[in-house]
């Protein structure tokens, strides 16, 4: 069924799409990617997302282990106190 423009604009995701588009344009302008060709934009964005994903992955894997280590080293264990 063909929706009129009025109906299409009142669908809930169009204002969100506009907001995302304006933020994307601001990002392109501030980082000078606006003047680059499409493949250059894809290159920069993929490097950027690669770095972000590497950091996130490392965070997921290593942060629980480190927190466990720190907690283990700093909180006193009840059995140790009873022994001494």
């Amino acid at each position, binding site marked *: 069924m063909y929706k009129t423009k009025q109906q299409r604009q009142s669908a809930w995701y169009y204002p969100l799409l506009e907001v995302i588009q*304006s933020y994307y344009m601001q990002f*392109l*302008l*501030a980082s*000078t*990617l*606006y*003047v680059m*060709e499409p493949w250059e934009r894809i290159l920069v964005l993929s490097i950027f997302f690669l770095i972000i994903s590497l950091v996130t992955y490392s965070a997921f894997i290593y942060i629980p282990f480190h927190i466990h280590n720190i907690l283990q080293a700093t909180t006193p264990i009840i059995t140790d106190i009873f022994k001494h």
Partner: protein
Amino acid sequence: MIDTNVLTVSENMKIDKNNYKYNTTNILNHEDDLQCEEFEETPLYAAVLTYIGYAILCLFGWLRDFMRQSNIEKKRGAIDPNASLDFVPLYQSYESFYTRNMYTRVRDIFNRPITSVPGPQFELAERVSDDYNWTYRFTGKTISAINLGSYNYLGFAERTGSCATDAIDAIKSYGIATCSTNSEIGTQFYHVELEQLLAKFLGVESCIAFGMGFATNALNLPVLASKGDLILSDELNHCSLILGIRLSGACYQTYAHNDINDLEKKLRVAIVQGHPRTNRPWKKIIIVVEGVYSMEGSICRLPQLIELKKKYKAYLYMDEAHSIGAMGKSGRGIVDYFNLNTDDVDILMGTFTKSFGSAGGYIAGKKSLIDHIRVNSHANTYASSMSAPIVQQIISSLHVLNCPEGKNRISQLADNTRYFRQKLMNMGFIVYGNKNSPVVPMLLYLPARVTRFNREMLRRGIAVVTVGFPATKLLESRVRFCISAAHTRQMLDTTLAAIDEVGTELSLRYSTRYQHRRLKDI
């Protein structure tokens, strides 16, 4: 730092919705209202983003150059044909790197061909590029746009009207080429009429006209100065003045822009110490300034300069290219603007390209000076004399300027200038320069925003001139609006609405001295 002056102006003390008090001191450099100039500082985040932007462009430039060098990508720019034959390379400087990798990406905003007379509204040829601005093709359509780039200050760029009719009659009576130089057989009576009319208009003893404005500066400064003289020129002088100063063979020093204290210091040191090596006294000292600086919109400090030159017995050369016709109550330039005596400025130079709608330049001053130039100048003895319709256009426009219609044009220009500048500043944009100068530079800083601004304004039917790195400093890319007397209030309102909209989308409101407001709130 809030000055006590601000308390008397209630508008400047408004607090915006975030309860942030804007620092709204209007820096008045002089008690005069005539010299009220503002050059707001670059905000830190804009400077950082601009440097980052140029760094990213540089990185990509190296990447693309590497790809071109290793034949992954085709070389499209100018190629050195003998690169392998051990010759000195033709293109090695940073300038060609800049042209290949930064200028070409955004080349479609510069050098647009126009297809009508450059009046207040004109037609642009629409051109499209399929390969990212390396080549263009014309679609055949024209875009009608409001013209804010032409130096059409008094609106004489028109196809119809008394000036155009007179110029056409001049072609019919005198032809187009004079086929000779001024000193041989090329001086016609209309050249003499032009020089006499212009001398009477400016209020000087005598005047001489040349065919090209740039050449007037470049070829006549060597006549006036030579080895053994000192020239003190403002740091933001035009290329033609710099070329003339270098060609003359005189020693030259630059002083900080419009800074009278710096100039005085340099004058004193020069007079006391003389030549750099021999310490002999200078034969003469010439101070070279411009009336209105076209990239800054600032006006030279003529009263203080005249006082200085009388005190230290130097000569003053003023280039009124952008200010003749546009400044002053009767359009007679900066001398008229400050109500001073024309005898105080030794050499007045100007061009006919901007306010008179023609081409060429002139030098005006005492009769002895002009006679000396007439005999000794290369531009007079070797250049072909000015063509008849061009001279007639200037003569007609001078006649118009003496009538009430001309007075209307001058006051309309002043009105338009003040209105446009005031609105722009009230909206929160950074605008440089004196509030009465018809050249309005608005700062944009980031290279990507400069490109987007230009393209968005053209999409809305307004053609502007944006300037970036080599013409201005690296950080201070700007858009320069040239207001004309032919712009109607409605055109200016359309422009302001478009700037307001584009300025909001691109967040171009950098000012910390004025509140950021939308146009509908002013």
